[in-house]
C-alpha cells in the first residue's frame, strides 16, 4: 500500500484552511496549522512533501517561514506553494526569491489548488 504524500497547510484564516483541507484531503494526508510558529513546529514534526503557505500570517509571515524551511537540511525535499493576495506584484518574485516552488493567487478555484500541488509534486 502506497502512503499518500504528506501535506501541511499553514493558514490563519480558519474557513480557508478548512476549505483547503476539504479540497486536498482526498488525495493527501493533510495537517493544519494556524500561524507561522505553529506551522513551523508542525512541519518539523511531520516532515511533509508539500507545504501550502499563506503569506500574511501572525507570529511569522509566509516568507520568513519559507526561508526557514529552505535553510533546514532536513526539509530539503519539501516543496513549497505560497498563497498570495496579489496586493503587490512583487509578492511573486519575493516568494520565488525565498525559495518557494510555486504560488497561487487569491481568490482561487479548488481545481487550481489541486493542480498546483500536483504539479509541484510531479516535478
Amino acid at each position, binding site marked *: 500500500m502506497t502512503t499518500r504524500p504528506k501535506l501541511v497547510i499553514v493558514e490563519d*484564516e480558519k*474557513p*480557508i484552511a478548512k*476549505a*483547503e483541507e*476539504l*479540497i486536498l484531503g482526498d488525495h493527501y494526508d493533510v495537517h493544519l496549522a494556524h500561524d507561522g510558529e505553529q506551522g513551523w513546529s508542525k512541519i518539523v514534526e511531520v516532515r511533509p512533501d508539500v507545504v501550502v503557505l499563506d503569506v*500574511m500570517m501572525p507570529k511569522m509571515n509566509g516568507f520568513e517561514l519559507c526561508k526557514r524551511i529552505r535553510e533546514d537540511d532536513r526539509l530539503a525535499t519539501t516543496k513549497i506553494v505560497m498563497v498570495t*493576495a*496579489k*496586493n*503587490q*506584484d*512583487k509578492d511573486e518574485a519575493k516568494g520565488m526569491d525565498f525559495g518557494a516552488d510555486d504560488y497561487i493567487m*487569491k*481568490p*482561487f*478555484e*479548488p481545481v487550481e489548488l489541486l493542480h498546483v500541488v500536483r504539479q509541484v509534486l510531479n516535478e
Partner: protein
Amino acid sequence: MLGSPILLDIVTTFHQFNKFLGSDGGSLLKVGFEFLLFMLIAYMTTSQYLKNKNRQIKYLSISFLTLSLVKGITTVFYVGTIFGGLPRVWIDVIIPPIESTFEVIALFLLGVALTYQLLRIKVKNLRERFYAACGTITLGSCLFLTYWIFTFKSRPYELFFHSPQHIIFETVKLIVIGTFVGFILNNREKAIKVEKYAMVIVHALAIYAIPPMLHIINFLFFDGTSIRIRVLANPFPFLAVFLFIRYSYLKMADKASLMDKLDLTEKKYKKIKQVNRLKDEFVSIASHELKTPLTSINLYTSLLADGTLGQVNDKQKDALLTLKGETKRLTNLVNDLLDLSRIQNRKLILKKEAINFHHMVEETLDGFRAQNPQMTISNKVPKELQGLMDQERIRQVLINLVSNSAKFTPDDGVIEVSGRKTARSVIFSVKDNGKGIPKGKLNYLFQKFYQVDPHLAREEGISGLGLGLSIVKGIVDAHQGEITVDSTIDKGTKFTIKLPQERKDNSTPLRSL
C-alpha cells in the same frame, strides 16, 4: 535765516571736524575705523568660506583680510607717531605707498570675486584678457612700489601725499575700480541674475572710487594744495565700507531665510512621506481584508457546486453557479479599485519582458470567443510580432478594451485586434462596429468612474464602476505609451495604443511627493 547763529555754529563745527579729519588725529580715526570695519567683513566672509569652500567667497575673504591687515599696520604706525614719537617719515613717506599698493591688490581681488561668476559665463579668452589686464596693472603697481622704496633714500624728504607717485597710485586704483564697475554695469542683467546684490557692490565700489578721483582733481587743478578737496574725500571710504557691510549682512540674512524655508520644506516632505506610507499600508491591508472573505466564499461555493460536500440537484447547482458568478464580479471590482489606487499613487510596478504579442492576443480573445459565440472576434496581429511590455498588465488592457467592445457591440458584431511594429514602438488597436461614443464624451472617457451612458448601461445589465478605461490609461501611461480613441455613432469605436520599445528604467515606481 542763513545768518542765524545756530546754523553758523553747525557749519563751523562741520568745518572744524573736517579740518580735524585732515589732521593726524583725524587720519588715525579714519584708518582705525576702516581697520575695524574691514576686520568685521573679513571675519564674516572668512567664516562663510570655511563653511562652504566657495572660490568666489575665497577671493572676497582674502581681499578683505588684506585690507584689514594693511589698515591695521597703518593704524599701528599712526598710533606710534602720534603717541610714541615715531619719526614722521613712516606715516608720511614709507607706509602710504605700501598701503596704496595693497589696497590696489585687495581691490583687484575684490573685483575678481565679484565678477568671477559673470566671467565664467562669458567667452573664455575675454576672461583671460580681462584677468591679464588687471593682473598687469596690479603687478605694475607692485614693481613701482619696489622701485619707490629703493629710490626714496636718495630723494629729498617729501610728503607722499604731495608727490606725483601718490597720484599714480590713485589713478591705478581708479582704473581698477572703474573697470570692475564698468564691467558689472555692462552686464547688469547677468550680474543681478548671478548675484542678487550686485548693485549694492557697484554702489560701494563707486563710492570707494570718489577719493581717488578727488585726489587726482586736486593734483591736476590745484597742484595738490587744496586742503578742502583733500578733506572732502574723507567720509567716502566710511560710506563704502558701510555698504560692504550691508552687502555681507544681506547675504547672511538671505542664507538664514533660505535655511528656514529648507527646514519647512523638509518638514512638509516628511509629512507627505508619512501619508504615502499610510496609503500604501491601506492598499495592502484592504487587499488582504477584502480578498480573504471573497476567497472563502468562492471556495465553499465551488465545493458545494462540485458535489464535494454532498449531492446537489440541478436547481441548487444553478443557484450556486450564480453565486460564483457574483463573487467573481465582486472580486473583479475589488481588483479594479486596488489597481486604480496603485496607479494613482504611481505604485504600479511593471515587469517588462519580450513576449509574442500575437500569442497573447490569441489567448485573451479565446476567452471572449467562448462567451460570445456569435461574434466575430479576430486576431489580425502578425504571427511573429514581438514586443517589450508587462504581459499581465497589457493583457488586462486588452481584456478591458475587448470586454467594453463586447458590451456595446451587437451579438453578431465584429471585434478586431490588430498590431504592427515601427522602429521604436509597438502599436496595436481594438476595433469594433458597435454603438460608438459621442464625440463630446471622448474627452472624459478615461476619467475614473466615467460611464458614457450610465442609465443605458444599467438597463442592459452592463455593470461596473467605470474604472476599466482609467486603469487602461494608467497602465499605458506607466509604459510611457499613448492611447487614442476614434469613434462614430452607430459605426464603431477604435482604441489605438502605442508602446515605446526602448528599455527605459521604468521598473521602479515613480514616487510622488
